[in-house]
């Protein structure tokens, strides 16, 4: 039955904490999303962070 869940509690709390701490989401906003919606926001954020890191790196090199 454990496999019915696509995530685990440790990962759940860690991700929520980072979303609240670093990206200004509120806990109630996160908890009222549909799980796939939360996944979409997380992957969009990862994309954004990667692009920003690349942009900053390029700026520092140039």
């Amino acid at each position: 039955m454990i496999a019915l869940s696509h995530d685990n509690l440790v990962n759940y709390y860690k991700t929520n904490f980072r979303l609240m701490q670093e990206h200004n989401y509120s806990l109630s906003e996160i908890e009222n999303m549909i799980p796939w919606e939360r996944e979409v926001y997380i992957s969009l954020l990862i994309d954004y962070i990667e692009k920003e890191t690349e942009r900053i790196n390029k700026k520092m090199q140039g």
Partner: protein
Amino acid sequence: MALPKLNDKPKYELVIPSSGKKVKYRPYLVKEEKVLMMALESGDKNTALNAVVDTIEACINDPIDKNDLSIFDIEYMFIMIRSKSVGEISEVGVKCPKCNTVNEVSIKLDDVKLPSIPKDKSIEINDTISLQMRYPGYMDVASLEDETLSGTEKVFKLIGKCIESVTTEDEFILIKDTPESELEEFIESLSSAQFMKIKDFVENIPTVEKDVTFHCKSCSEKNDIKLKGIDDFF
């Protein structure tokens, strides 16, 4: 006090396999998934089953009585709700029967088949006695988990829970009105052939299923496998 929020979640439809009743449902939310994870990670089967049933009850818009749901209703309804909540594709590890390598196979959960439910659930014990059977509800399965019984004792208990009534030449006896000791005595008095008929019913309780075809990544064998039961789908 804030006004309630209406129509803020999508609604879908499913058919409850045992009753054929069409009901509307919504996906579960992150906070409900958290409760599921807590229950599933507790390692207690009953806690997990109760959490799954509570989630189904919360997500179904129409009134349903969870005590009327069979175990295959729970499996099917949870798969449907989960597919709209987490994603319609589930990656499962399926063992190649030839070389035992675990292969990742993508399954579209929406394509999971409804279990086919036989209409006639009666069993002829002899010329004068017949049994009307029923599929076990989730409460029946949960009550078996509570007891510290051996495997055989659990099968006997489950068989008892699957008998709805006994019809003799001049009597119709409802099992729910019969003392448990009398039912146990009745089951123990069955001949081997009679017992096998009932055992066959219990072993063939409908379950969710789906046919999958994949080529093994290790030995390239083409496999056609039938996934059965909720554990096979995640």
